[in-house]
């Protein structure tokens, strides 16, 4: 099959590589472009001018711009690496094999049923939906409305583009690789400062690439090329092309998005091979982002074929594409003429240049005359003709007069330059209006920022180069380095004449004058908003959706608020602008997420014997650490396994991996006094080798954590916070030491991960410990309940605590983490003949429930105090202050109607966590008096038991209550919270 032709490709020129054709598809039709094309330029070269249907009225739309400013050209693109539901065609470099589809128009782009909406236009102006769709309610209309909105469809199966992240710092960040940016970088080249120059295009140059001005005797484009080559050679300068600076944040932090593109071939995939999100911190910042051109507003200005003059120049000069055969120009400043000259040079016919100014620069007039192009001055375009493609325009003198019709299939618009000051706005700087250039320019710059070129204020090329040079000098001065010799090159540029602001052309139908092309906001919508009092610029934006599209209003904001200003008789600075929000241009969520997915989404913590638990059939759950919840080796399902595990502990032996339990060493002469200020219990009376349980509260008196404290000797204590709070407790101790009690001589060392910790619980716990042959006496007399021993096993240091969470005889054996797996294997071997089992979290928690031990976070909530869990006597018995003690004296802490922790025995049905205790007699909805905080069927007692926080619970032992749970009622009796071995005989044994 013959290669499809490029009817709109000019004979020669451009930066494309005509030796490397790239085949792609648009709406299923095979087309061809060249390496160096964007999707937009390739489509235009192939004669595509209708690219989309507008959002609301489904009007035919063409390419207005050439890059990310284009409000119209949203297309779906599937490249060799991933998928984009909707992206601006001018922003995407063409690659072989790309599948490009238009995202609007049904059944087809050319014939769009939705265009009927045009006939209803007068009824669906700005904000119409606030005024109707109320009867009977919005839900009736919503599904229909939703279906009509949105660009493109997400492909659930598409691979995301590969991405990574990079962190860097530099002395100077230069944003924008146009004339001003290149000049600044060149001036800093030899300074030794580390410079990063970022530009969103594949090559530096910006508007120089399509400029006809000469710099230092060569063409602007050639100059840019030479400079880029020089910069690439400079050691301290890093040039990042295809890189957008997407956000500016405090501390001169920036986010950049760098794309890596491959052209592709029939063999190799093409497109965005990967993206890299940069986080960059810069010392000084040079804003050289340039400006974007504005269209002019007149009736029918949205017809395909109408295009920004700058876009015409770029398509011609960079891509060798002529967007039209007969191109008229409508301008209010000098830039329009450059488009005319570029078109003529490329052999495009220019029927006329229409300038609202009476006296444009003489030289321009002469050049046009020489090419026998009509220059109609002091005039404006008031209408366009044509269907889905422009075929002519209507021109009248300003202030009225004879209309004339001019045939053309293209119209280049130049309404003036809008500086790209988004990044200063990200930092909270408000743009200010400058009437002489009819533009909002950056206001107060953030510290160590410099704005140069059009980004500072629309200016001539030589002015831009001078500003760049000055900025470079200022930076060198600030950084204390010598400014290298560099003077701006000579520029051969005709002195221009000022712009003549012209915000709204003609007196035609305001509902045909488009301001925001993407959201179909017309002059009439703005008139309506003003009529209804939405005159704050933010109200206008929100009421009409002006500038809220994916183009972020680059071409529409200024025109819109100028028209608002005129309608409300205010000047531009009074009206002000809306705030530009980051990012500068849309960024894939995937690029920001990076590769933090699946196992890398959140750092997970593994216990030392993790691998062995896996082999033992553990089913893990994340408790801050990956911990065995139950073991498949103990039962077919969770319930069966949990029961088997509980039975093992009660009858013989259970082995529980408690490694995540906090281990904090508190040392020094004042260690006891220090710890005593955190725990509710009196710790000063704790003897060496002994262990005490206690709870810790916040300053508000609410329980924060619990655990055991071990006295190794008078100057060394071990605090054992819960695994969930281990780090937080260590941080809390350290904070109070530093900020409140620096005089106390105490050191705090968190060593949680240094130790693997296994609890052996059950009647055979002692023989099991003994079988490990520790170098100390494990007899009941020598090693009683709530005591601690440090020694060795096989010469390895061990720390053993005799404590109990289960109500059985229990030892907690700590060994250095590297030996954790070995210890676990030994314990399994020893206990095997006795049918010992590995115990998961669920069984462990149910065992402690039978024993009535508290589980912080389950049996306490955001307002539970020690008084509520039965520790009133401990609190009263402690004379020293502890954190939170004072709050326990506040009225509510003392009040009688608080929820207090009690036990529950079910008399009918099964208790479940979360059951609400009903106020006597009633059925829901009704008042409740508390809830079940822990519950299980107790195999040991053969009944369903639970713990509950119930109002005045401590005074209601023996009372029967009704509990509501998922539509059922459970009857239960309030009882003391200890269900198993209340005399503690078993754990003393």
């Amino acid at each position: 099959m013959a290669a499809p032709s490029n009817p709109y490709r000019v004979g020669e020129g451009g930066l494309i590589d005509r030796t490397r054709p790239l085949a792609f598809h648009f709406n299923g039709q095979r087309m061809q472009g060249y390496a160096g094309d964007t999707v937009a330029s390739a489509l235009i070269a192939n004669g595509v001018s209708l690219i989309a249907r507008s959002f609301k009225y489904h009007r035919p739309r063409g390419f207005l711009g050439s890059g990310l400013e284009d409000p119209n050209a949203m297309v779906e693109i599937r490249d060799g690496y991933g998928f984009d539901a909707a992206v601006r065609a001018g922003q995407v470099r063409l690659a072989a094999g790309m599948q490009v589809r238009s995202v609007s128009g049904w059944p087809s782009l050319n014939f769009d049923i939705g265009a009927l909406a045009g006939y209803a236009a007068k009824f669906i102006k700005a904000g119409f939906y606030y005024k109707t769709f109320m009867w009977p309610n919005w839900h009736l209309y919503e599904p229909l409305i939703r279906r009509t909105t949105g660009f493109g469809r997400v492909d659930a199966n598409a691979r995301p583009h590969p991405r990574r992240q990079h962190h860097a710092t530099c002395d100077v960040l230069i944003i924008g690789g146009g004339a001003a940016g290149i000049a600044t970088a060149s001036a800093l080249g030899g300074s030794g400062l580390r410079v990063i120059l970022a530009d969103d295009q594949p090559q530096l140059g910006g508007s120089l690439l399509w400029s006809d001005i000469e710099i230092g005797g060569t063409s602007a484009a050639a100059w840019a090329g030479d400079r880029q080559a020089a910069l690439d050679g400079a050691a301290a300068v890093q040039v990042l092309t295809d890189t957008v600076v997407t956000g500016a944040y405090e501390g001169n932090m920036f986010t950049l998005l760098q794309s890596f593109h491959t052209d592709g071939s029939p063999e190799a995939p093409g497109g965005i091979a990967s993206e890299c999100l940069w986080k960059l911190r810069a010392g000084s910042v040079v804003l050289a982002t340039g400006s974007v051109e504005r269209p002019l507003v007149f009736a029918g200005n949205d017809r395909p074929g109408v295009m920004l003059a700058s876009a015409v120049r770029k398509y011609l000069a960079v891509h060798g594409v002529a967007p039209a055969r007969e191109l008229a120009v409508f301008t209010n400043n000098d830039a329009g003429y450059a488009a005319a000259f570029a078109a003529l040079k490329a052999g495009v016919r220019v029927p006329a240049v229409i300038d609202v100014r009476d006296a444009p620069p003489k030289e321009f007039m002469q050049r046009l005359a020489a090419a026998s192009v009509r220059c109609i001055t002091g005039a404006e375009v008031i209408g366009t003709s044509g269907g889905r493609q422009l075929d002519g325009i209507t021109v009248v003198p300003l202030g009225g007069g004879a209309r004339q019709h001019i045939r053309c299939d293209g119209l280049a618009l130049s309404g003036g330059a809008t500086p790209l000051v988004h990044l200063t706005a990200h930092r909270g700087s408000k743009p200010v209006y400058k009437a002489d250039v009819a533009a909002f320019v950056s206001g107060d710059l953030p510290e160590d920022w410099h704005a140069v070129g059009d980004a500072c204020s629309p200016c001539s090329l030589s002015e831009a180069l001078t500003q760049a040079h000055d900025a470079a000098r200022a930076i060198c001065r600030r950084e204390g380095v010598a400014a290298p010799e560099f003077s701006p090159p000579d520029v051969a540029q005709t002195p221009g004449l000022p712009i003549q602001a012209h915000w709204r052309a003609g007196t035609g139908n305001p509902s045909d004058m488009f301001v925001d092309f993407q959201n179909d906001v017309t002059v009439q919508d703005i008139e309506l908003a003003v009529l209804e009092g939405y005159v704050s610029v933010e109200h206008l934006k929100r009421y009409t959706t002006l500038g809220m599209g994916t183009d972020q209003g680059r071409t529409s904001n200024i025109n819109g608020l100028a028209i608002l200003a005129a309608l409300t008789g205010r000047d531009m600075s009074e009206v002000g602008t809306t705030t530009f929000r980051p990012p500068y241009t849309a960024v894939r969520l995937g690029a920001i997420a990076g590769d933090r997915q699946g196992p890398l989404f959140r750092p997970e913590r593994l216990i030392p014997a993790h691998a062995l638990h896996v082999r033992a059939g553990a089913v893990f759950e994340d408790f801050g650490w990956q911990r065995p919840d139950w073991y498949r080796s103990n039962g077919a399902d969770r319930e069966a396994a949990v029961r088997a595990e509980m039975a093992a502990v009660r009858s013989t032996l259970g082995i529980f991996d408690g490694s995540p339990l906090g281990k904090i060493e508190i040392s020094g002469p004042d260690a006891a006094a220090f710890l005593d200020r955190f725990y509710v219990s009196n710790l000063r009376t704790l003897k060496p080798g002994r262990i005490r349980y206690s709870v810790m509260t916040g300053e508000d008196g609410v329980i924060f954590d619990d655990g055991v404290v071990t006295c190794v000797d008078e100057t060394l204590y071990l605090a054992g916070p819960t695994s969930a709070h281990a780090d937080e407790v260590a941080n809390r101790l350290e904070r109070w030491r530093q900020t409140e009690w620096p005089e106390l001589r105490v050191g705090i060392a968190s060593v949680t991960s240094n130790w693997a910790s296994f609890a052996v619980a059950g009647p055979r716990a002692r023989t099991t410990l003994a079988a490990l042959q520790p170098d100390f006496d494990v007899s009941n007399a020598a090693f009683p309940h709530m005591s601690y021993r440090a020694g060795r096993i096989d010469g390895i240091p061990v720390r053993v605590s005799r404590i109990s969470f289960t109500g059985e005889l229990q030892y907690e054996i700590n060994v250095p983490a590297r030996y954790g797996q070995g210890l676990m294997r030994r314990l399994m071997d020893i206990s095997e003949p006795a049918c010992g089992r590995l115990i998961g979290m669920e069984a462990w928690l149910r065992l402690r429930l039978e024993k009535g031990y508290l589980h912080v976070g389950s049996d306490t909530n955001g307002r539970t105090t020690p008084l509520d869990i039965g520790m009133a006597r401990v609190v009263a018995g402690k004379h020293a202050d502890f954190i939170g003690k004072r709050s326990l004296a506040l009225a509510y802490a003392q009040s009688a109607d608080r929820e207090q922790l009690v036990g529950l025995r079910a008399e009918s049905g099964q208790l479940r966590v979360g059951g609400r205790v009903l106020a006597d007699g009633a059925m829901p909805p009704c008042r409740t008096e508390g809830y079940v905080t822990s519950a299980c069927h107790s195999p040991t007692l053969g009944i369903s038991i639970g713990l509950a926080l119930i109002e005045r619970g401590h005074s209601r032992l023996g009372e029967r209550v009704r509990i509501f749970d998922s539509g059922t009622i459970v009857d239960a009796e309030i009882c003391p919270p200890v269900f198993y071995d209340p005399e503690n005989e078993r754990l003393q044994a």
Partner: protein
Amino acid sequence: MRYSLKSLLVNGFRGNRHWTPAWRSPAPRARYDVVIIGGGGHGLATAYYLAREHGITNIAVLEKGWIGGGNTGRNTTNVRSDYMFPESAALYDFSLRLYERLAHDINYNIMLSQRGWLTLIHDHHQMESARHKANWLICNGVDGEIVERAGVARMLPLLNIDDNPRYPVLGAFLQRRGGTIRHDAVAWGYARAASRLGVDIIENCAVTGFERAGDAITAIETGRGRIAAGKIGVAVAGHSSVIADMAGFRLPVTSRCLQAMVSEPVKPILDHVVISPATGVYINQTQKGELVIGGMLDLYHSYGQRGTFPTIEKVLTAAVEMFPAFASMRLMRHWAGIVDIVPDSSPILGATPVSNMFINCGWGTGGFKAIPAGGFLLAHAIATGIPHPLAEAFALNRFRTNRLVDEGAAAGIAH
């Protein structure tokens, strides 16, 4: 003029040249019976209910910028009433019930979309908490239910429900009446309704100071001159401490930055509001097709309405983890509001140490859903001088007795 299909057609035929301002913008008078400081949803609703419920119409609402420009116009537009403590449940459900008929009350389409609020459950402990919550809500007379895993998969086809080792989905808590509202419409609708009842809405009018007599404030100094006031209502969210400081008292409030972000619009892909407290993200899709995404607060105290990137990164990473297909969607805009965080994440409603000043603040990250109730209850306090029964638990003095209503601790992150 009344809004209806008819008025749209009539005005359409007449060239849309006869619409009238949604609200009047008069110059401030020298004195008002009541001055409301803050032209956001809460302030405008307060004025509306003062006029409608209590017949007080000599009211001014002072807004330092443009109405609805604070958190009302910056939030993620979620509404729900799945609060656990009976005091909170009663308050927020009252608010949701007012929202349910608001469009008709004020003749302005606020686009209440009760598409269902889904809180994802990622482990057994969360499942127990969710069951507790559902039970409690039913006891409180509020709807709430548990949806099993398969049901969640049906409701959220793009949810990564099989291959997420870190945060498996066991099910979800669902409040069917939860959903979204068009946020600007709430401010504009209340403003229009209040204005028609005689309320003066005064924009670009910043409060700069107070004139006092004894323990009362007699007049307000503003950028637009001195305004005498009988009673004063304060509804300025993140700026409550600033006004309190001018009035000579302190609040248990810290102002923090809460960020929100939208993607570029796509065709419908998410029919509900979904939140995953464990991963720290909540998402809904607007009528326009944009994904609206929010998450945790920025880390430090701030009045700068600009967010910080690490938060954006964490929130969007969580969104992509939960919905891998979102990786190819694009972040279009992110912004921030200043929210008023109090220790127990519950509002402060009613009297202040200044005898004729009443306050409505402390909604933290959940203010939007509470606008009708916040306005209604502040209006009651101003008009009657005593707290409405629904507001009794939320008085400022609860911090003196430590009788807090700690939804934060009970309900996880609330938005």
